């Protein structure tokens, strides 16, 4: 279709609202954060200096490195569990072919649940003295656990809760991937004499990789920015053992009002997320078939 010259102005005008919205709601806050990360503020909010001080401070800050470590620990643990369980669940559902509506509703309910509700629910379940989790453990003759109050178990426990909430989501993505695989390829494999194991490892899994990478991207963005569940359950405790970079940044900015330093932490987190997404995009191109 030929676009006439006098229509151009009209087209520009019509795309203005979207452009203004994008700049105002996405670009501005982000650029403002970057700008802020180069400012030093007094406790009353006065700008006292300008430069890379915040970043220098970050490098020397043990809590920052702790935040990086906790973020990655929680990220890797959750991602691996969600991918393995999600894929297994998807394979089961795929074999079941037709899913009753009630099962599907139950299935998506965890990730439809608001994080606050999920957090409160798990706080009750995992309560060391009153919770159902420890009641089950002791009924089985096992010693009770401190769960979220344990410095050692807090991250695995958070990972478990996140896995409970998001595994169905991963499973649905993988199920979609499975359903789009060409059925004749499986028949060819059947004639070629591939065992079920060989079919999974040599055909299904390689063909699913692009889907799995997509699931990884979606979960990575969320997991690296892990916030709400931790804020509701542990607020980074016990003694910084669940203090992810995001929680640390939030508390630095909104509890200790060090806005410049908080900005620097958030910019660093954004770079990490962006880097992960870019790495996954490369990976996706590599596994595309």
């Amino acid at each position, binding site marked *: 279709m030929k676009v006439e010259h006098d229509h151009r102005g009209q087209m520009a005008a019509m795309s203005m609202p979207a452009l203004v919205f994008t700049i105002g709601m996405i670009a501005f806050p982000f650029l403002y954060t970057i700008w802020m990360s180069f400012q030093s503020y007094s406790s009353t909010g006065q700008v006292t200096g300008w430069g890379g001080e915040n970043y220098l401070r970050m490098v020397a800050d043990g809590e920052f490195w702790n935040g990086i470590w906790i973020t990655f620990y929680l990220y890797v643990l959750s991602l691996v569990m969600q991918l393995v369980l999600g894929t297994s669940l998807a394979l089961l559902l795929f074999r079941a072919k037709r899913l009753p509506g009630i099962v599907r509703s139950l299935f998506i309910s965890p990730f439809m649940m608001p994080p606050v509700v999920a957090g409160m629910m798990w706080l009750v379940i995992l309560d060391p003295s009153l919770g159902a989790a420890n009641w089950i453990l002791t009924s089985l003759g096992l010693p009770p656990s401190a769960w979220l109050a344990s410095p050692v178990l807090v991250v695995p426990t958070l990972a478990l809760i996140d896995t409970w909430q998001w595994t169905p989501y991963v499973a649905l993505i993988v199920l979609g991937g499975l359903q789009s695989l*060409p059925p004749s390829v499986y028949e060819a494999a059947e*004639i*070629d*004499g591939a*065992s079920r194991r*060989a079919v999974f490892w*040599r055909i299904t899994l390689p063909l699913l990789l692009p889907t799995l990478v997509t699931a990884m991207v979606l979960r990575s963005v969320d997991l690296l920015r892990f916030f709400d569940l931790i804020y509701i359950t542990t607020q980074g405790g016990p003694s910084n053992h669940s203090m992810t970079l995001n929680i640390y940044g939030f508390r630095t900015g909104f509890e200790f009002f060090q806005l410049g330093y908080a900005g620097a932490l958030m910019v660093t987190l954004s770079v990490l997320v962006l880097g992960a997404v870019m790495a996954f995009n490369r990976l996706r191109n590599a596994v595309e*078939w």
Partner: protein
Amino acid sequence: MASITMRNLVKNYGNVTVIPGLDLEIADEEFIVLVGPSGCGKSTLLRVLAGLEAIDGGDLMIGDRRVNELPAAKRDIAMVFQDYALYPHMTVRQNMAFALEMRGLSAAEIAPRIEEAAKLLDIQPYLDRRPKALSGGQRQRVAMGRAIVRDPQVFLFDEPLSNLDAKLRGQVRAEIKTLSKKLRTTMVFVTHDQIEAMTMADRIVVMKAGIIQQVGTPEEVYENPANLFVASFIGSPSMNFLPVEVQADQLRLVDGSLLPTTLMAGQAAGHKSLTLGIRPEHFEVVGEGQGIAADIRLVEPLGSDTLVHAFAAGQEVIARVSPDLRPVTGQRLWLSPASGKAHLFDPETEVRIDGTGKVN
């Protein structure tokens, strides 16, 4: 390198019977083409042979083994799928090696077999490419290569040419036929395209609604179709069918024109109403006032000959005539069936009547 025997073979999908008891003998090294319209059960039969569908009754033998319950992998067959079903994440070489690896062959045993098959099919330059980087024709060859390396007893082809363009289809058709002579393996080829069936088959099996209508060489099926269905399905354009009344030694057409029964391949005596079948290429243009009057409605020049769509004996007929005739729309031609080439069918049973007057 094995014969195939089907005895009273039954296949149901739930309550629907797709193949209600089929008998067929396929000789060793024979090239059999199963042909019929969509839904005639030909692909189902192939999948039953392959072991991709369970058998609900009767016997299936490959060689002298009864294979009813044998899984696909153990039947020693190879199949070329309509969409080729190549493993998209593997290179051509890996695709061809897969079945051999699954059988536990070593890399040293696999490599020469791939080289040999690749050479035979002229796909050596693509061995390290993935299917995505190949054209349709190349993929088709890889699919055949994957079948050949296994050195199976039986090759099964499920409409393997339908995704190729017309020119390539002709070329690959010839290649498959040449290949079948070289490999000397039993081949079962499914198609809905009667030209593929005619050109490639040692014997054609024409199917309709899960029932075999006729089994025969391409010539037999073309020259002596068993019934109206086979007559209309084989040959392009399709055979013309005209209702006739038998009057002594003449056949009276709807428009009143008369044809002598001596022209017919079948015996009209003893019948009253019949269906006359004449292939477009078996019409002869005769002098004015003889045969059937045909008013030309459309002319399709094909170069080598010309198709004439005409209104004759109360209906549309198609005749293949010499281009030298230079027919034009609106012109009237007089057509008569070539001697011994017109067929008579019983309109009730749709069966062809042969020279002895018997319904065969």
